[in-house]
């Protein structure tokens, strides 16, 4: 009787594809091409591939860490076992707030876009309250629904990728030629910037126990990330063909500006539809990140997840009140990205080494 019940609340390993992909694809796709172009010009497409490969490695490391010990298959437990209650708890806390601020930054940026493009006079509260309510409603019904949001967050907006083909009518192949006129230092900086667009997938560290047969999900995680890389590559390529380099560097959200050129028989000015549909893209970002926050908090403090969720939503709203200007929004996004960089580049490898050492010790003793 309990076995099928349990299966209902676990998710199929294939669904990790959506969880990984939608957590990576978010508000970043609207502007990453500008940032990498600033670093490495139009040759920065190389950096997308390199950064993609590096992140594949990090996903492999994460799965190694999670599979090291079957009894400790999520981060709070791993932290507790490796670093003890206090130090481990502090580390978990850092990660939880990292996810919390990731959600907040995404939400603030999205609201900023709406204020910039659609409704200059709309207040932050007016949009934040319904959005947070919908996010809370999803998390309240558990991880199965959160996964469903990720699923729809992929299936509904994925066709938006094809809208990037239309602007190629005005594409100019000369823009990206010559292909390999670049330096290593430029590429390294661009790889660094590009990796920031891929952060978010490390939420696996928290939802891993919810996956039926976790080990089988690894290939789906790699697959999900692979699709993210392809999508970013495609968007970058079409933008590079469409814009001249100095022009791209001037635009805040090149992807949105690119939609301006699309003219359909019933919709002129596609960017407005695009902005509205982008809500579905950022929804998984918000739900997964805040789910991680509420779940991790529950595991650390023993509070009910209902309560930690409420705390998360209220805190998120309050921090939105503090971040008023565009510069502050950018600052928050960049800070979250820097922390994410450190987590992926330094902390995960260190954790990997520790887990290997501990495993060796366990085997010898």
């Amino acid at each position, binding site marked *: 009787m309990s076995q099928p019940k349990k299966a209902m609340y676990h998710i199929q390993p294939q669904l990790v594809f959506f969880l990984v992909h939608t957590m990576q694809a978010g508000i970043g796709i609207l502007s990453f091409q500008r940032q990498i172009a600033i670093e490495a010009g139009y040759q920065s497409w190389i950096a997308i591939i390199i950064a993609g490969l590096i992140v594949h490695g990090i996903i492999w490391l994460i799965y190694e860490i999670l599979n090291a010990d079957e009894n400790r298959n999520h981060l709070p437990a791993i932290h507790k076992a490796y670093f003890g209650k206090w130090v481990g708890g502090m580390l978990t806390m850092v990660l939880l707030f990292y996810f919390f601020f990731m959600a907040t930054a995404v939400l603030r940026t999205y609201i900023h876009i709406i204020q910039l493009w659609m409704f200059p006079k*709309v207040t932050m509260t007016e949009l934040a309250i319904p959005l947070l309510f919908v996010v809370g409603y999803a998390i309240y019904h558990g991880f199965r629904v959160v996964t469903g949001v990720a699923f729809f967050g992929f299936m509904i907006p994925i066709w938006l990728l094809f809208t990037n083909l239309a602007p190629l009518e005005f594409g100019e192949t000369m823009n990206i030629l010559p292909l390999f006129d670049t330096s290593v230092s430029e590429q390294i900086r661009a790889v660094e910037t590009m990796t920031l667009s891929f952060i978010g997938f490390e939420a696996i560290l928290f939802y891993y126990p919810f996956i039926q047969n976790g080990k089988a999900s690894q290939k789906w995680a790699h697959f999900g990330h692979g699709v993210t890389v392809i999508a970013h590559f495609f968007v970058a390529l079409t933008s590079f063909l469409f814009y001249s380099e*100095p022009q791209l560097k001037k635009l805040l959200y090149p992807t949105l500006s690119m939609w301006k050129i699309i003219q359909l028989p019933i919709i002129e000015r596609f960017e407005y539809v695009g902005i509205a549909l982008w809500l579905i893209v950022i929804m998984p970002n918000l739900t997964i990140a805040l789910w991680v926050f509420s779940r991790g908090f529950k595991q650390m403090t023993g509070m009910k997840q209902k309560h930690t969720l409420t705390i998360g939503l209220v805190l998120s709203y309050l921090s939105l009140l503090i971040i008023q200007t565009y510069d502050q929004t950018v600052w928050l996004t960049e800070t979250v990205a820097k922390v994410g960089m450190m987590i992926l580049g330094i902390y995960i490898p260190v954790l990997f080494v520790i887990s290997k050492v501990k495993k060796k010790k366990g085997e010898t003793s």
Partner: protein
Amino acid sequence: MKSNGQRLIKLSLALLLFITGCGPQQNILDEIRIMHTIGFDYIDDNHFRGTVTIPIYGSETEGETRTEIITDTSRTAKDIKVKLDAQSSKRLHNGKLQSILFDETFLQEGVSELVDTFLRDPKIGMRVQLIGVEDKSVLDLLDQTYPIEEHVARYINDLVDQNIEDQNIPKTNLHIYLARFYDEGADPFIPVVKEKDENLKVNGIMTFNEDRAVCKLSLRESFMMKLLLEELNDGGAIEIALDEDENEFTVLRNIMSEANYTFDFNDPSLSLQIDIDFKARINEYSGQTLSSSKLNEITSATKEQIENEAGALVTQLQENNTDPLAIGMHARSKGYDISNDDWDETYKNLDVNINADVTILSTGIEE
């Protein structure tokens, strides 16, 4: 009980007010004036005149559909919107703006300040056309009705679009203007319209250096530019004179063309070879029959004329220091560094050699 009912009524009234009145700024379709065209005339260094056309849609009570114009002078681009709004019964809305017109003086003095204000406004589409007006002020051009089309704004816009799509004008719009304006390897160009009898006509293009128009090209030169600029374009026609004295000529319709740019970087002054592959069909021929020897004659005459005229065009552009052919971008894409200051000088002294390869695909349904 009674107070409950009253509360309910009050509540639902409040809700109704909320949903109709609250929320972001509304742009209810019939409560705004949709600007179709905005045009600018140069007055002096500090002043210009802005003119917008707005369609007044007819209905049972308001009669015929017509176009009205509003005009005023101003110092800055920001200010003009306020001044124009001051004359309008409903708020002016620029979301459906289709074309931006400049008079000749304005084009020569530089347009970037004005274009920049449109650029920052997310409501402006990227398919907006920048159009130059020849021989006349924009105000006079807009303040007229033309028999061929009800709304002047639509007329101008469709005119330009049609000529880009099927005729001799190379492809351009606000996006292409900006892409070329910012890129050091290319310069923008815009189509020019002119009054002809009681209608308008497209009269070639203006090419820019930075944001100033420096060179005007005729329709025939525009076609040459289109040949040099676009791949696989299907549009444009060219008249080839075979024998001036006997008034023998033919009209070729472009089916397919492609231009290849090859640089010789070993040459110290940099030389450029442009190969045009031109495939066309004969649209019109004034002579009697088209024998194969005649066809050969046409082919060689066409080759000669294209090579001569394209060469003259490139020289003209080089002399005016304007690069609408994106030769700089071609050089860069082949690995030549154009970011240093003496690119302008290099461009001026570039040795350009043009070779045309003409194929006549068909002669129409008659031999």
